[in-house]
């Protein structure tokens, strides 16, 4: 079990992190660039000499600046695996030598199994500059796992890879977690990656953890608008009742299902594809419905059209809730949904989170 409670001074702010990761769990630190995620990972690894607080792994204290004398275990004695976006393979060594680098003695069986599991048999005698990006990351992962660390830290290890390779390595990581039972902390700015790999996650911004908990909760129950917009919510709408709810492009369905959430009426203005999925743009002229089903004007919100569903909003500006009666929503649609350009549609916001 990993227990982290530490502060790391940075130039413009101090990173504050407090979280626990259960043994064998995959935990994601999710947030935008410069949120302080890598600093947290670096502190756990032992590179942040200015970090204060406590870090424990399986009951062993790696850092405790509250103790006298304070405890600090050097990096090379922590026995953890660490993989970054750059594979950092030793260029003067072969793949085999890279993988065996961290082994004190030739514990060949485990390493041999890793090599087979990672599909590296054919490149064992190759130098890193002869490998593709995906192969290099496989070697980096195998190298990190070969000494059988108690903790694996991953700092956006797949960010530079193409979609298919990324998916393949995500599958490999899941398998490694399942078969070896190793605790993994992964830093990512891709929500889909966090959702795919982690059972729990923390959303970070400006050095603070905004919310942490089960991964699904981040999208279903974001604790604040700051968290919501980080996990893909693109608009806030004020309903007739005065409630302000969030709109997530993936949590809007075409049709009126009043038992599942508020229903909006709108006009389809564009119909296209984004990343292989159907995406429609709907101008919601009025939102909220009265008991008779006829539209009732309750307020409006103008939202700049994002490039596709699930994309991050363009900035942190507060939406203007009094800008006008037209709201433009870009949402995912099923290929069979009857929502051609010019058609009027009803949209149901599925159990949207409320914000004040």
């Amino acid at each position, binding site marked *: 079990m990993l227990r982290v409670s530490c502060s790391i001074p940075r130039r413009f702010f101090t990173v504050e992190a407090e979280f626990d990761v259960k043994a064998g769990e995959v935990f994601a630190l999710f947030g935008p660039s410069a949120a302080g995620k890598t600093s947290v990972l670096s502190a756990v*690894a032992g*590179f942040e000499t200015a970090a204060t607080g406590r870090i424990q792994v399986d009951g062993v204290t790696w850092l405790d600046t509250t103790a006298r004398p304070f405890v600090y275990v050097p*990096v*090379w*004695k*922590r*026995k*953890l*695996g*660490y993989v*970054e976006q*750059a594979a*950092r393979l*030793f*260029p*003067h060594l072969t793949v085999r030598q890279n993988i065996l*680098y*961290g082994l*004190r003695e030739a514990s060949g069986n485990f390493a041999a199994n890793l090599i087979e599991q990672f599909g590296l048999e054919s490149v064992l005698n190759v130098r890193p500059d002869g490998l593709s990006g995906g192969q290099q990351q496989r070697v980096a992962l195998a*190298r*990190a796992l070969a*000494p059988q660390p108690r903790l694996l830290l991953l700092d956006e290890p797949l960010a530079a890879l193409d979609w298919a390779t990324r998916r393949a390595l995500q599958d490999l990581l899941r398998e490694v977690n399942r078969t070896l039972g190793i605790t993994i902390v992964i830093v990512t700015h891709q929500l889909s990656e966090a959702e795919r790999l982690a059972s729990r996650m923390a959303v970070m911004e400006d050095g603070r953890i905004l919310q942490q908990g089960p991964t699904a909760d981040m999208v279903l129950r974001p604790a604040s608008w700051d968290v919501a917009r980080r996990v893909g919510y693109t608009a806030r709408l004020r309903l007739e009742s005065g409630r302000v709810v969030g709109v997530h492009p993936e949590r809007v369905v075409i049709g009126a299902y009043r038992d599942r959430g508020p229903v909006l009426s709108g006009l389809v203005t564009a119909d296209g594809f984004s990343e292989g999925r159907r995406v429609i743009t709907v101008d919601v002229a009025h939102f909220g419905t009265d008991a008779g089903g006829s539209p009732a004007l309750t307020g409006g919100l103008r939202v700049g059209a994002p490039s596709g569903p699930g994309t991050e909003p363009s900035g942190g500006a507060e939406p203007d809730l009094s800008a006008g009666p037209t709201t433009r929503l870009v949402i995912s649609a099923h290929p069979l949904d009857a929502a051609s350009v010019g058609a009027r549609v009803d949209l149901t916001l599925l159990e949207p989170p409320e914000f004040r």
Partner: protein
Amino acid sequence: MKRTSRHVWWLIPLALLTAIFLLVPLAALAGHVSWRAFGQAWTNGGAAALRTSLVSSVVALVVILVFGTPLGWLLARRDSAFWRMVEYLMLIPLLMPPLVIGLLLVFFYGPYGAIGAVLTKFGWTATNSLLAVVLAEIYEAMPYYVFSAQAAFSQVDTGLERASLLLGASPAETMRRITLPLALPGLSVGFAMAFARAIGAFGAVIVMAYYPNTLPVRVWIALQEQGLPAALPLAVFLLLAALPLPLVAVLWRRGRHAPRLL
């Protein structure tokens, strides 16, 4: 690439002319030195001078390696104001004329100098001795090695050193298994430059130690006392002693790391 080459064709004769200009003095050796002159130069102090030069250069290089490598590493890895100041100060011995180095060394290591007086108490002398030659060669050659080492270490990705530490290798082991092997090509060139500089050291050496004669000093004496024909064979000995190591180092580095030409 070819289209670019067509526009810079006029560079080729210019480049070749420069290369010929630099190499053509070597042809003088073939035309002006006889085998008999080599024999005479060898027996007439040349062999002893070569021995002195080789011994003093090897000792100087050991000192340079042992003390210059850590300094080069720290200059490459430390970014504090103190180490930047050290770096700037290191430029002074690098840029100082060798003759001036020699004069300063005499004042410092001579019998009446601060260190010289201490050495005298132990029965050593740092003027006109092998120790004096070694000291002069160290002062002339070490800055070249230190700055080469700094450049070599700077090119080693610190991320690789971090990766090694994370894999359980201690800092010393990381230095041995990662940093030094990756810096080796640059270090070897610095080593070769320092060797060439040490074995060819003249200005500081002649001020510090007229005796025992090193090869460069012997060349100068022969030139003064007997003229050019007597000096040339000694110059050939100096070339044969000084050139192979730097050439091998440069060729080895190019073979390992430099991109292929054309």
